[in-house]
């Protein structure tokens, strides 16, 4: 597989469209493919959320535009074009997809279950992982460690196309009889393992198959990442000179490698239960439904750290650049990430406090969960330390990164409440949990993604994104995000269960309904604002301001590569002299010292042999 890299480096042949854009072997193109894939799925997942947010705010009211009018609802009087469409539909004997799922434009409760299930599934597996690990992982790893491509380019390409296949299978589930999977993204058995219980047939099967395919894609990706980072670093790029983003991606690759096979085996067991008559999760045949929860959360807690660690790494790249200061406590950052990775294997039971598990076990899981807050806090303090007395440049990536840090703190704090099993009795399965996960995953990971897209865009596409539009997008997103998710803490403490289609059916929730309305209004603003991002990305690919080689005056190796980055990345492989965060070094002629420049020397001075300088 190395042969390809040699060959294409030696003679720069013109590549066909298919080779260049579809079945590309170049890590940069594969990264961009993941980026586009993730952004498109982001809009899909967001659209599903808006559908069920409508239902939560105005239960059983027809949707705007596609639903029937009020007059039609009450008197059968046709007033809008949608009314006429629905009347034609009702005349027809054949039931259309939209009529089954949204009769008269009102979301059917069964469809509501599919909606929130698929929203979470898509956001976790088809948005955040493809963007953070697929897009940034692919684009950044070879560039930041100073090599020409991944160790196995063909495997890399396959990883994207398996990801695509998984996406297609998952989307196909919406259109099979019985509807899509509806057992939640956690797929709790026996709801997910016995078709009769949820009424979902092939939808759940496809959900399992798609996730297994995604597992294969991740497996190929992580084999590549691990091999590349271990074996192909530029000369002088020792482990403790690696940028933190690379450390994060390395650790995440290991977590993905080890976590996904576990859930793959569990998903296979679900498929056997559904299709081959086994009884793994069915008490009747001697099975155990709690077993699924153990297997799932054993995977899914590392998975939630897979969702955040690359964001942490990317934030650790952007903060020093825009604070013009070295990252505070580089090594403690690395060790904190390693500690998080280790601890994430032994905390899964905190999702199961209410499952009927032995309370003594619960206490053990409570302790380990509290422990994991320690390395998380170390990272936070280090970020704050980096900002302390810095002359901050408030660029768009920096704004997003600051949002990442502050929102992650809120999410981490709510996590600590939930980690107390006595407190969790009260807030488990309420909107408090929903608030927590969105503060960490949206407020954390997604804002890091926003920042990362802005930050690396000049290197990816050779052009800048529009900063004004970026700022507008940031502020609307940031405010609307808090408008959506902060009130959910209050709903949760008020006892509002998650995963219910109609809160108005519960008398004790009715007085809080205005909060649901407020949340939905903010959610629509948040959703619409994302078109600004999408527009900014696609417009800037073609029309953005042309970028110079190192627009942010950063030190890491990707900025040493020419812009646009050629096939093979570097003219000559760079020699690395020191760590990645040498900003405002006293005595240096400028306030950043690229990793390729010997410390404190002029760029043309005698190169200091690798290892002679301190880390």
């Amino acid at each position, binding site marked *: 597989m190395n042969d390809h890299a040699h060959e294409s480096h030696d003679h720069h042949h013109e590549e066909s469209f298919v080779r260049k854009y579809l079945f590309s072997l170049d890590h940069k193109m594969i990264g961009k493919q993941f980026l586009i894939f993730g952004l498109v799925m982001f809009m899909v997942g967001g659209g599903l959320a808006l559908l069920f947010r409508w239902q939560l705010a105005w239960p059983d009211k027809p949707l705007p535009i596609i639903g029937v009018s009020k007059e039609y609802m009450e008197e059968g009087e046709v007033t809008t074009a949608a009314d006429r469409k629905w009347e034609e539909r009702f005349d027809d004997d054949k039931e259309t997809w939209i009529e089954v799922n949204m009769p008269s434009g009102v979301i059917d409760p069964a469809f509501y279950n599919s909606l929130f299930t698929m929203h979470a599934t898509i956001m976790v597996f088809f948005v955040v992982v493809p963007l953070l690990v697929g897009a940034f992982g692919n684009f950044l790893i070879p560039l930041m460690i100073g090599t020409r491509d991944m160790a196995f380019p063909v495997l890399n390409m396959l990883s994207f196309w398996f990801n695509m296949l998984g996406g297609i299978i998952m989307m196909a589930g919406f259109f099979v009889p019985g509807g899509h999977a509806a057992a939640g993204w956690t797929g709790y058995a026996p709801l997910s393992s016995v078709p009769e219980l949820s009424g979902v047939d092939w939808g759940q099967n496809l959900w399992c198959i798609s996730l297994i395919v995604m597992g294969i894609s991740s497996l190929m990706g992580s084999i590549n990442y691990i091999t590349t980072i271990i*074996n192909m670093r530029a000369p002088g790029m020792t482990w403790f000179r690696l940028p933190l983003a690379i450390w994060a991606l390395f650790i995440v690759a*290991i977590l993905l490698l080890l976590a996904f096979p*576990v859930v793959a085996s569990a998903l296979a067991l679900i498929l056997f239960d559904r299709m081959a008559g*086994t009884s793994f999760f069915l008490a009747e*045949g*001697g099975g*155990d439904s709690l077993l699924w929860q153990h297997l799932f959360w054993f995977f899914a807690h590392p998975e939630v750290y897979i969702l955040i660690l690359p964001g942490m790494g990317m934030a650790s790249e952007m903060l020093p650049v825009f604070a013009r200061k070295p990252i505070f406590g580089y090594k403690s950052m690395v060790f904190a990430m390693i500690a998080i990775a280790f601890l994430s294997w032994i905390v899964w039971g905190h999702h199961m406090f209410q499952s009927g598990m032995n309370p003594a076990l619960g206490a053990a899981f409570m302790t380990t969960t509290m422990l994991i807050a320690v390395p998380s806090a170390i990272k936070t303090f280090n970020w704050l330390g980096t900002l302390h007395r810095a002359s901050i440049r408030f660029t768009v990536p920096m704004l997003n990164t600051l949002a990442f840090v502050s929102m992650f703190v809120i999410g981490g704090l709510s996590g600590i409440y939930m980690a107390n099993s006595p407190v969790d009795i009260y807030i488990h399965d309420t909107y408090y949990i929903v608030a927590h996960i969105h503060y960490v995953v949206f407020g954390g990971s997604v804002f890091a993604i926003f920042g990362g897209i802005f930050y690396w865009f000049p290197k990816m596409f050779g052009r800048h994104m529009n900063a004004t539009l970026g700022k507008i997008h940031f502020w609307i997103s940031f405010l609307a995000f808090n408008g959506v998710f902060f009130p959910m803490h209050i709903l949760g403490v008020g006892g509002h269960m998650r995963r219910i289609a109609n809160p108005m059916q519960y008398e004790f929730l009715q007085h809080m309904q205005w909060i649901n309305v407020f949340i939905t209004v903010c959610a629509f603003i948040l959703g619409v604002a994302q078109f600004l991002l999408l527009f900014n990305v696609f417009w800037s690919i073609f029309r953005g301001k042309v970028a110079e080689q190192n627009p942010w005056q950063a030190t890491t190796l990707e900025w040493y590569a020419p812009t646009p980055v050629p096939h093979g990345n570097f003219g*000559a492989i760079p020699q690395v002299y020191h760590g990645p965060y040498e900003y405002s070094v006293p005595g240096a002629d400028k306030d950043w010292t690229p990793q390729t420049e010997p410390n404190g020397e002029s760029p043309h001075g005698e190169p200091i042999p690798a290892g002679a300088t301190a880390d």
Partner: protein
Amino acid sequence: MDELEHTSYESVEEENRPISNARLAVLVLLGAEIMFFAGLIGTFLVFRFGSVTWPPPSQADVRLPIGVTGLNTIVLLLSGYTMFQGLRAIRQDRQKELKNWLFATGLLGVIFLVVQGSEWVRLVHHGFTLSSGVYGSVFYVLIGCHALHVLVAVLWLLAVFARAIAGRFSVDHYVGVEVCAIYWAFVVVLWPLLYILVYLI
């Protein structure tokens, strides 16, 4: 900086690697495989030690073929030995021996699969199937997953064998044999563990 220009692609990428990319990748792959089986073995252990009696009362009359499978275990272990001999042969550039050892290994692997298959047929005839409660479920899925891995290893070996016949391996080029041997070792070493867990205790 000009000093650096001579650092060529090759010298950076190939030299000073304690382990080649291909070997490393297979070892990493084994990490995933181990976790996959850890999920299944964990499932087995939950049922095995969560049950008061094992096999469960409804399956009390099922007798797993301990003797035949024990012999079969020896067959598989033997194939591990022949694989190792094959690897040693090519390391000393004995190409012909490599072919013979690979052939023997593949043959033993196939024998293992055939015996497993015929035992399964017998069990199914006795009415012990996938849907025979959790005992049947966990037996067929766990043992079946291992058999599937042996099958994959045999196919992989076939590819290596074809390349060996074509004379593609030599004393300084035998990574292809080695990565296959690593994978083979995994399916061989895993088996006694499964045999002890599922058949003996």
